[in-house]
């Protein structure tokens, strides 16, 4: 993944723009971790494409020195898939929020996971709709009071990790953005992993979700790496992902190896390089074959 160019530092991955997130927003930690992971992997900015939807978190592509696409709410995985298939040399990172990714974008999540396409999927999960100033998200806890649920949420939150595992994602991790070193390692692992990699990051919204604050997580998160969890065991992974109480697990829950990616299975990518850069002309021979079948 490295080129001949000079090794860059995390600072080289800062864009000129200052994030307009609220002071203390968890998303700063995610941005920081992603920048570090890119630097550690020896990537160059032009080799990376970040694709986001719409939301506070989805503003991330504007803040990292890399190609970026700030697309429609809920659609970043579809756009990222198209881009990755058109140019599989790109390091393709979809970055977005929980509403964007698990709410409106849920169907793309399911199907992108089962295709096991080589995309890193970072979801800044603050269990709230931040940009729209505080309504429940699909990961908001039961009973949570928000502007759209002033008397408490009555819908059971979904569990993105068990979903991802069952959908066929081959790298499923959870991080807490307050722990940048750990988050960096998980993101780095996700980018290195060949296949669809989810990193769900607790990234507290300090303005609209006072239930799931930095303090809340700091007191609870516990690293799977320190618990001897085997990420090859999907059942254990699901069990650990379901634990939610005084201890909330973070780390690499599941990793499936030796599962072909969509790119590897797709014969059109076998040779000829990225399709985006192939010669557009139809050869006489190709034309001949087509027309013959029509006669």
């Amino acid at each position: 993944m490295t080129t001949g160019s000079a090794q860059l530092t995390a600072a080289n991955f800062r864009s000129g723009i200052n994030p307009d997130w609220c002071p203390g927003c968890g998303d700063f930690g995610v941005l920081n971790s992603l920048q570090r992971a890119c630097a550690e992997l020896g990537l160059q900015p032009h080799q990376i494409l970040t694709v986001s939807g719409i939301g506070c978190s989805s503003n991330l592509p504007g803040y990292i020195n890399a190609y970026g696409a700030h697309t429609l709410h809920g659609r970043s995985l579809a756009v990222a898939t198209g881009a990755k298939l058109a140019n599989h040399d790109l390091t393709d990172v979809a970055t977005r929020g929980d509403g964007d990714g698990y709410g409106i974008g849920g169907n793309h999540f399911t199907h992108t996971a089962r295709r096991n396409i080589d995309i890193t999927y970072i979801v800044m999960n603050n269990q709230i709709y931040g940009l729209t100033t505080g309504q429940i998200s699909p990961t908001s806890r039961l009973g949570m009071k928000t502007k759209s649920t002033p008397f408490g949420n009555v819908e059971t939150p979904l569990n993105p990790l068990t979903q991802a595992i069952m959908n066929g994602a081959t790298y499923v991790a959870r991080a807490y953005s307050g722990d940048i070193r750990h988050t960096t390692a998980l993101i780095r692992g996700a980018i290195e992993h060949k296949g669809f990699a989810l990193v769900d990051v607790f990234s507290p919204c300090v303005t609209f979700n006072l239930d799931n604050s930095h303090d809340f997580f700091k007191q609870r998160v516990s690293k799977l790496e320190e618990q001897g969890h085997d990420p090859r065991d999907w059942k254990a992974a699901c069990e650990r992902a379901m634990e939610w109480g005084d201890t909330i697990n973070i780390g690499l829950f599941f990793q499936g190896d030796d599962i072909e990616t969509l790119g590897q299975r797709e014969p059109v990518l076998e040779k000829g390089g990225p399709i985006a850069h192939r010669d557009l002309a139809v050869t006489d021979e190709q034309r001949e074959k087509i027309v013959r079948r029509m006669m």
Partner: protein
Amino acid sequence: MAGSFDFALAIGGEAGQGIATPGNILTRLFIRRGLYFNAYNAYQSIVRGGHIFLTVRISDAPVYTHGDKLDLLLCLNQDTMDRHLGLMGEGTRAIFNSDSINPGNPRQGVELCPIPVGQVSGSRNRLVQNTIAVGATCALLQLDFGILQGSLEARFARQGQSVVDENVGVARAGYEYAQQNFTPYPLALPETDRPQAQWMGNEAIAMGAAAAGVKFYAAYPMSPSTGVLHWMAQNARDLGIMVRQVEDEIGVANMVMGAAHAGARAMCSTSGGGFALMTEAVGAASMMEIPVVMVDVQRAGPSTGVPTKTEQGDLWQTLGASQGDFPRLIVAPTSALDAFHTIPEMFNLVDHYQCPGLVLSDLLISEGTFSVDPDDIDMSPEINRGKIITEAGTGNGYQRYKDTEDGISPRAIPGTEGYVHVVATDEHDEDGGLISDEYTNPYKRRAMVEKRARKLNDALDRVPAPALVGPADADVTLIGWGSTQGAIKEAIEQLAADGVTANHLQIKWIVPFHADVVTGIVNAAKKPIIVENNYSGQFYRYLRSETGLTIDSHIRKYDGEPFMPHHIANGAREILAGTADVFVPYQEVNV
């Protein structure tokens, strides 16, 4: 129709009876002989049963519609006989399996051609009647049996000699039985020296895309657009095209946008309901300035509507796709061959203008089967990718959305060293930075709206103006758009035979729209009549919004079936006679 020979046959039966096979054997045989044909298949959204009615019109000169009349009816079931025999006229024939079908009373001059299939074929297989009918048809057309035999051998070769032999034997039995028992047509099947090819409109669209250099195609199946996906899937490997069936149309449109952003020429196709789901992406592509081509193959709506029937009902959907004002191009090709040529043109335009291009086909074009001259299949059209940057550079001061004089900003493709930038569906400044999230600036906002809009300022220069065909002082001017081209053309021939002169204005480019040219033509017309295959006059309403023209005379159809030429000719006559303003023809054949 300038040809000396104009013959139409129809094969009717139910889904599952294998109507496609005899149809295909016959059309292959015709095109090898250098004949032109135009075929329309009336069918239903049901996999077995129902009624299928395939009309094939053949000539030694190009044919633009499936026509108005039948010369030969091949009945594969009783239902076909009951529905269609009454519409057969003087000099026609009806072939049917007399073992199972009861003819009823034909009109004067119709020759019934009953074939006792069991006895003739010596088989109980219900599919043999198809082959018998093909044999009989060739006999009635005075075709040498050897030609049919050659065709059958070619077609069944892959299935082994015994299958070939069986089919040839059965066909011969039908051929000989017909020779002995029925009167051949007075005109024998002609022959020209230019063998033709054949395609369906959806194949023409797919091939146009391949010729344009499309390297990414995505779709979610939806009638009547699915044929494009099938062709693409079949040819993906040979042509190095990434073809994807996606979870839904939203995914399709956004995937295509992603692929286009990454530098590939990318396309998708769907029908109206799928396009409704894609509309949000249309606005996004225009805002991010990503060139994509989306094809909407119209079918009878609203909503799920009549999936296997045709209509020109989605014009306003494309005009109103997505919120806000933004540049988009819209074109409605007038035939399968025109669609083939239009796709590469559209790609050059969207690459130039960096905006979405919408193509309105319909079931009539997309699922029709047509002969095509192999020489017209130019798979090497001009390709112009516009202002695109793919070579590494320093990118000094590069601005993705630079506010240039013509509004077009050089587009660096992700992966290109030195031009790192962000594209955004939020309003943005020249750098792609989000003005709405950083600070809100009405001056920048206004400038960016104007920059995007300005791109299309010279678009009219890049698409041909529609031209009036026929005598300038004609009694009526028939104005159509998109797929009605062929039917109007033939209606004009019918009117001429009647002493009514008509000229013809067919509109293809919707956006940009040659309003001045069209206004000039309409104002000079004695009796302009707008012909459209929908209820509300979608094109007329758009024409009026662009020109202010008021036109009182209309021919419309919205029963699911396409216009037949005589519908339009009748409408023109009634309108001229003052008996109708809006003429809606009655569909005589309950297809």
